[in-house]
């Protein structure tokens, strides 16, 4: 695996206009092709980190180096929100086509690019359906397809599976890992689930709140591909225990 960093945050702090300090002195690196997870209680600034990496927000102090901040026009960054964030008035095809359309792609090019992505997420027969006609899991798949269609280098995911049921979530975790390996993506994944963090990531940064900062780093050394049997292994349980302890320490200083 390549170790050239795809994302670098150097001593970043973020204070909102209201005076609320969201992040204090956050430094992190994500290597190209790495699966990095930010884990922490709500209000710890996990989402703010993602927005800074996406170039949707600027740091108060410090610097952010990422494809989105270095070469904004390239659409090398994709963002997946907790909600599928689809356009309810557009069908599946048009929703996935959005980044291509905004970049001025022709209809033929959209078709050529969307067909394989639709197949990847398993929604080929639903290209003409509207979001309201799909289940929650399927809508999230559309959202993932829209993120993948530009062939991004960096994929930012803000608790994407938090609202889904356990079975759907496990399947999407599995699929996400497959796409990550196949496409050599750099993923920065935000979650508050210890199990999800362990199952997916190579490295987990544990964050604390008020102000948001990185407190600990935990490596998950289990090899990929990770099968569902990984979830019941001793290694998995030990990693979960380590992360849970780190999370407890992160919350120890903060009022509940």
């Amino acid at each position, binding site marked *: 695996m390549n170790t050239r960093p795809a994302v670098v945050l150097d001593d970043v702090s973020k204070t909102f206009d209201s005076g609320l300090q969201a992040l204090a002195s956050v430094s992190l690196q994500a290597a190209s092709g790495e699966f990095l997870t930010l884990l922490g209680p709500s209000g710890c600034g996990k989402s703010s980190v993602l*927005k800074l990496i996406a170039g949707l927000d600027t740091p108060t102090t410090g610097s952010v180096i990422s494809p989105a901040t270095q070469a904004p026009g390239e659409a090398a960054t994709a963002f997946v929100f907790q909600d599928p964030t689809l356009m309810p*008035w557009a069908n599946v095809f048009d929703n996935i086509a959005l980044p291509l359309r905004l970049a001025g792609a022709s209809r033929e090019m959209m078709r050529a690019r969307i067909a394989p992505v639709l197949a990847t997420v398993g929604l080929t027969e639903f290209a003409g359906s509207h979001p*309201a006609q799909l289940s929650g899991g399927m809508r999230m798949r559309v959202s993932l397809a829209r993120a993948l269609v530009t062939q991004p280098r960096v994929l930012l995911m803000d608790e994407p599976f938090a609202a889904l049921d356990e079975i759907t979530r496990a399947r999407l975790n599995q699929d996400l890992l497959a796409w990550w390996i196949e496409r050599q993506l750099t993923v920065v994944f935000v979650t508050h689930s210890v199990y999800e963090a362990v199952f997916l990531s190579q490295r987990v940064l544990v964050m604390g709140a008020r102000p948001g900062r990185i407190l600990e780093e935990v490596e998950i050394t289990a090899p990929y591909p990770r099968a569902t049997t990984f979830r019941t292994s001793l290694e998995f349980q030990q990693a979960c225990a380590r992360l849970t302890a780190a999370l407890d320490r992160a919350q120890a200083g903060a009022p509940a």
Partner: protein
Amino acid sequence: MNRALPVLSLLFLLLVWEGVVRGLAIPPYVLPTPSLVLLTLWSSFGSLAVSWWFTLKISFGALGLACLGGVAIACVFALSRPLEAALLPLAVMLQVTPLVAIAPLILIYVESTTAALLTCAWVIAFFPILSNTLAGLRAVDPNLADLFRLYRATRWQRLRLLLVPGALPYFLAGLRISSGLSLIGAVTAEMVAGVAGRETGLASRILEASFRSETPKMFAALVLLVLTGVLVYSGFNALSRIALWQLYGERPKENH
């Protein structure tokens, strides 16, 4: 069955009305029977139709101008919060002042009667379109807006692909309300104006008939007005249902 209910109840009421008037031998200049109203409508349809056409022209003209004005002002307000803060109270003041109270002033200041009637009808028809469209423009999903920023959408793309389709259901709800209001505005203004002359609307026919104690004719003009109002409202209702169905790929909830 549910569709038949209002028709059945209306027929029942008309029958009771007919029976009571005949049974108590109430003279037609006090209260005509429904059958006499229908006969009068038939016999004086020639003169009523000309006035009906005039009223329709005024109310549709006002509705068209209300769409243009309401949407344009909503767009300006959506772009600039300070302008909204400065001018929305004026629009609200215009909205809460009874039309009959301002119509005489408008009739003084606007020389052409047709233009004055159009202005009166516009004054009460534009507000629902303005406030609904503004709500729609403001209701844009912030994550979706972020996505448009991430993919470097131009202002025009943002308007065409995000704001217009997002605000359309709100605009259509406003349009449905305004379609009825513009008819009310056209009639009320003409009542106040007491227009006489070559081109006059249904309100003038009602006033005329009342001066001559032609009660059946008053009712006939009223029936024509009610029918028009119901038709216009259901027409716009159907139109917006079809538009939303086309856009969202599902039957939207009725009359939301």
